[in-house]
Every structure is written in C-alpha cells, then in structure tokens.
C-alpha cells in the first residue's frame, strides 16, 4: 500500500485513513473494491443504500453473481482485459438489487499489478437508460408508423434535399427510398401542378413555402407529374418546419396523402355536377324557350281557332245568306215568272170568254128576257173583274223587273201625278200641300207609282163631309228619306193594320170603293225593292198618314 511505503508519521497516516474513510462513507459515488477472487472487499455505504443489501450479504457472494445473466459474461471479459494501462471506462451492466429489480450501472474501473484488486466507481444510469429506452421505443414506434403509414412522409434538410422518406412517399412519387434520398425537392424532374393543372411556381412548393414562412402548411392540394410517369398524382400536403432554438430550420417534415382517386371522383362529380347544372340551366332555358314558344303557339292556335271560328261562322253565315239569297232569288224569279206567265196565259181564255160573251150579248140581247140579259151581264162583269185581277197580278209581278236606278226628282214626278190626277182632284175638291221633296235614287216609274197609288187612295178614301186635304213631305235622315202622305180621310181600323199591304186585301166592298186591292201591295213591293219600309198611322174618322222610306244608297 501507499501508506507503508511512505515515511509518514502515524498521525499523518491516521489523517490519510480518516480522509479515505470519510470519502468512502460520504461520497455519493458508488465505490467498490473487488479482490482477485471476485469478492467485494470494500463497499461504500452509498452502494449498500442503493442496492438494499447489507455489507455482509454483498461480501459473502461473488460480486459477479449479482449481475444480470446477459451481462455477466461480457463483464468478466471486460475485467480480464483490465490492466494497469487499459482502464475500463463507462462500462455498463445491470445489477440485481435486493428487491430483485435491476439497476443500470456505468462503471469506471482500474487495477494495479501488485494486489490485482479492482478499484471501481459506479454511477446509477437507470433513469438515463429508461429515457434511452423510452426514446428508442418512440423511435421504433415512429419508424413503424412511418413505414406503415398510408401517407407519404418526407423529411427534408434545410437545403430541401431529402434526408429521409417512408415507403409510401416513394410509392406515391414513383421512386424507391434509395432513389429519393438526396433528391432535391425542387428537382425539376418533379413537376408540381396547381389544382387547375398549371405548373406550380417554385416558390409555392410546399417545402419552399415552409422554408420561407417557417410555418405549418395545411391541406394543400397539389398535382404531381411523376418523373417516371405521365400520370398526374393528386396529393393533399401537410408539413411543418423543425426549428432549432435559434429559430433556424433543422429539417422540414412533409406528409402527403394520395387523393388522386378522390380528386378524380370529385372532378368527375364536379364535371357531372357542372354538366348537370349546365344541363339543368340549359333545360331551364330550353324550358323557358319552350314555354315561350308554347305560349306563343297557344296564342297563335287560339287566334287561329278564333279566326277560324270567325271565318267559319262568317262563311257559314255568308253561305247560308247566299243560299238563302239564291234560294229567295230563285223562288222570287220562279214566282215572278209564274205570275207573269200565269197571268199571261190566264188572260187568253178570259179574253175568249169575253169575246164570245160579247157576240152572244149582241145576238141575244132582248131575246132571252130580262133574266137572261142579267146573266150575260154577270158573266161579263165577273170576267172583266177576273181580267183586272190578272192585270194587277201581272203588274205586281213586274215590279222589280226593272232594275235600273237613277236620280229621281220627286218634285218633278209629283207635278206629273198632280197633272195625271187633275180630274179626280178636281172632282173630289182635294187640296194637296206639297213640301219641297228631295232627289232620290231609284226607278222613276216605280217611285211615281208609289206616290200615285198613295195619293189616289187618299182621294178615294176621303171623308165626304169635309174637304180632302193631303200633306206630302219628306224628312232627311242619316241613311234614308222618310216620305209621308197625310190625309184627313176615313181612316183605317186598327184591326186591319197587318192586312193592309197584302195583295187583293180589301177593306170595303167594290160597290163602295172600286178596286182590286193591289195598290198597297205594289207600293210595298216597290219600296222594299228600294231598300225601304212602308207603314202607316191612322185614326178612324181623323185620317191616315202613310210613311215610306227610300234608302240614300242602294
């Protein structure tokens, strides 16, 4: 020992021993001195305290037996290798405590050639080891996660070169991990695209964005034109910078998920949605157009239907009217022809009767007695009357045969009538008051006949107890002239109003007032042919006013 060799005094040696003991007993370091046999000779109390053994318990058993079975072999080897030149530094093994648990110890040991004893100092690194294990576990976990993660993960160095990547990253990017390592993220081989497939600017590359902003990047959609493929891969990119205490970037972690399928589906959906929308829009527009067209069509159809209906109605009406007119014209013509021919042919036998009655009268007059003469007279009169009726009928049938209409000066024809009737006017002492009459459009002969018939009637049916006064005038209306012939004669009973204009209608006996009853029928027919009406107002014993109208235009 060092002490023996020195010339120290006892006191000095005692001091050294005290110091040694103090160091041994109070040091927090775990001090163990092993002899050549492997038993502990000196054990610091701190080690006893640490392990839970008594000094005896530790000293009685070979020190190596307390080691973890896995460590004992290597520990022995380490000890064997010990020599004064080569020391053991930071040799780590596990030591069993009294409670059975192991603690991790970090040994520094040395030996000396003389005693062969091993002087060792241990440090409890259990806590440190625990942390190390924990870290290792985390690393493993992370590695496992990275390897199995369905997202690509790339860790970039600050210069953006790839430090590490997981298999999925390679898969997505179409490169092996080996190929990827060392590539720069800004490698022009990799073309990043915007969502609209335009090239992404370098500055907007995820790694660059993070590098420049030093901030997280969240859910950026990117297209990747892979170096070895022409397919576009769509990815959602997330990333963050790992910063040092000095806020410098130590690495950039980027993760990305392949969303190509989703994007495709989404795009298709968008396209189909857009198409649908467009279709809908188109449909709506078309629909609107159709509605408009439909509306117009409906309107047109309605108009057409209406027009059609109107035309149809009109045609129907006109056709009916035409048919009626034609039929009436036909009937009229037939009637006229009939009455003309009939009256013509009826005249013949009558004339023959009259001829021979005349001969008989000449031959037999005064020879067949008064009765015989009377009979011949009756036959004669009846035949003549028949002849007159036929003549009247013929005259009536002639009305309207003359269709020539021209201006007729009523004042002129009135003068002629007054002339023609001069004798009967004089005989009856009638007074005719003539107002100024218009010039009308018509057939002069027929108009004259109307006036003449009406004036003749006024004279004929005069009231014999007073002077016959006849007022003739005309009122001009919008579309017609209204003529009136007013007398102060015997008047007409109300009950005959409707019968008066009927042919051969007589209100009096031929003895009282001779005539066939054709005059007013002829007047009515003439007035009607001139587009007018004829009527009368009358009071018995006071007089009658006949009115008739003549249209201004025919």
């Amino acid at each position: 020992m060092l002490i023996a060799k020195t010339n120290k005094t006892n006191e000095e040696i005692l001091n050294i021993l005290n110091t040694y003991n103090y160091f041994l007993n109070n040091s927090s370091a775990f001090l163990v001195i092993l002899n050549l046999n492997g038993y502990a000779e000196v054990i610091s109390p701190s080690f006893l305290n640490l392990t839970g053994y008594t000094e005896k318990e530790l000293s009685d058993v070979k020190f190596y037996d307390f080691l973890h079975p896995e460590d004992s072999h290597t520990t022995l080897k380490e000890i064997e290798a010990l020599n004064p030149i080569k020391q053991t530094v930071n040799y780590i093994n596990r030591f069993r405590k009294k409670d059975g648990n192991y603690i991790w110890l970090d040994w520094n040991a040395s030996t000396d050639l003389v005693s062969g004893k091993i002087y060792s100092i241990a440090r409890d690194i259990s806590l440190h080891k625990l942390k190390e294990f924990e870290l290792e576990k985390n690393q493993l976990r992370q590695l496992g996660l990275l390897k199995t993660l369905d997202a690509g993960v790339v860790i970039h160095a600050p210069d953006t070169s790839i430090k590490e990547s997981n298999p999925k990253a390679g898969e997505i990017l179409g490169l092996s991990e080996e190929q990827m390592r060392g590539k720069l993220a800004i490698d022009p081989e990799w073309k990043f695209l915007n969502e609209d497939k335009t090239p992404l600017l370098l500055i907007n590359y995820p790694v660059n964005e993070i590098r420049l902003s030093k901030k997280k990047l969240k859910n950026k959609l990117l297209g990747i034109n892979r170096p070895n493929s022409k397919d576009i891969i769509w990815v959602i990119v997330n990333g963050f910078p790992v910063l040092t205490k000095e806020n410098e970037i130590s690495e950039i972690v980027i993760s990305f998920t392949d969303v190509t399928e989703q994007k495709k589906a989404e795009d298709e959906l968008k396209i189909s949605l857009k198409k649908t929308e467009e279709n809908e829009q188109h449909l709506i527009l078309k629909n609107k157009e159709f509605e408009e067209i439909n509306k117009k069509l409906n309107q047109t159809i309605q108009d057409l239907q209406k027009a059609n209906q109107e035309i149809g109605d009109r045609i129907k009406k006109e056709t009916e009217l035409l048919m009626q007119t034609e039929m009436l014209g036909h009937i009229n013509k037939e009637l006229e022809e009939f009455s003309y021919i009939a009256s013509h042919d009826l005249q013949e036998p009558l004339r023959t009767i009259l001829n021979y009655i005349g001969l008989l009268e000449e031959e037999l007059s005064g020879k067949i007695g008064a009765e015989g003469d009377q009979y011949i007279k009756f036959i004669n009169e009846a035949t003549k009357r028949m002849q007159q009726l036929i003549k009247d009928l013929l005259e009536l049938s002639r009305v309207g045969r003359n269709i020539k209409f021209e201006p007729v000066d009523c004042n002129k024809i009135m003068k002629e009538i007054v002339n023609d009737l001069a004798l009967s006017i004089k005989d009856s002492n009638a007074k005719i008051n003539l107002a100024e009459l218009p010039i009308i459009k018509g057939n002069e002969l027929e108009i004259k006949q109307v006036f003449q018939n009406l004036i003749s009637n006024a004279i004929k049916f005069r009231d014999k107890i007073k002077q016959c006064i006849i007022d003739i005038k005309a009122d001009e209306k919008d579309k017609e002239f209204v003529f009136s012939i007013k007398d102060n004669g015997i008047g007409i009973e109300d009950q005959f109003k409707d019968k008066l204009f009927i042919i051969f209608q007589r209100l009096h006996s031929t003895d009282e007032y001779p005539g066939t009853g054709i005059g007013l029928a002829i007047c009515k027919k003439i007035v009607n042919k001139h587009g007018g009406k004829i009527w009368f107002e009358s009071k018995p014993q006071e007089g009658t006013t006949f009115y008739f109208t003549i249209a201004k235009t025919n």
Partner: protein
Amino acid sequence: MKKINCILLIDDNMADNEYHKIIIKKSGVCDDVRVVTDGKKALEYLENTGKKNQPELFPLPELIYLDINMPGMNGFEFLEAYKKTAEKLHSKVVIVMLTTSLNNIDQIRAEASGEVDEFEIKPLTEDSLKNTIEKYF
C-alpha cells in the same frame, strides 16, 4: 168601205181564229179568210200561192194577222223564214202582229224585224181592222 181579197190568220188558238173570222165578216172588209195554225203551215201556204195552176186554192193574202206564241214555228221564227224565201211578196203583203203579249220586248222585236207593219193586242176589233184597211189599202 174598201174590200180586200184575202186575209190570212196565223194562230193556233182556234177560238180566236173563229172569233176573228166573225169580226172580219161582220166588218165586211174581206170575204176570204184563210187560217193556218203555225208558222210552218203559213210558209207552205205562201209557197203554194205562187203556183199558177191552183190560184183558187191558195189565193195570195193581202193582209196577214200573225200570232207570236204558237207550237212548232212561232211568229218570230216565221218572220225570219219569210224574209228568206218569199222576197217577191214583201211589198205586197201587210203583216199585223196580233198577240196577247203585254211584253214591250215583243213589240220592239216585231218592229226590228222590218216585216211587221202593225202590232196589235188581241182581240181584233172591227174598229182596228177598218183602221188598218184605211191605212194600207
């Protein structure tokens, strides 16, 4: 009163023809009254008058009374045919259209034919007959 040799009545109405014969006889202007009942027979009669071997059977009429409405050949048709075939007679025969027609157009047609000298309405009277004789003979 002047007398003429022969009057021809062209009319299908026998009652009229008989009556007219009586009137003519009574008037005493003519003793020989011949009657045919339509235009065609009248033409035949007139053709026969030219044949000299039978003058007593078909004496030439100096006056003709012509009806319009007749079956076969009517009055106007007779006038057309008469114009063409019997030119030599034209200046010698007086034709009076004697009809029941009250139609003005018939009178206008008759005058337009150039052959009709008078247009009269039936029945023939002694007065009108005498007037015609006075006027044309």
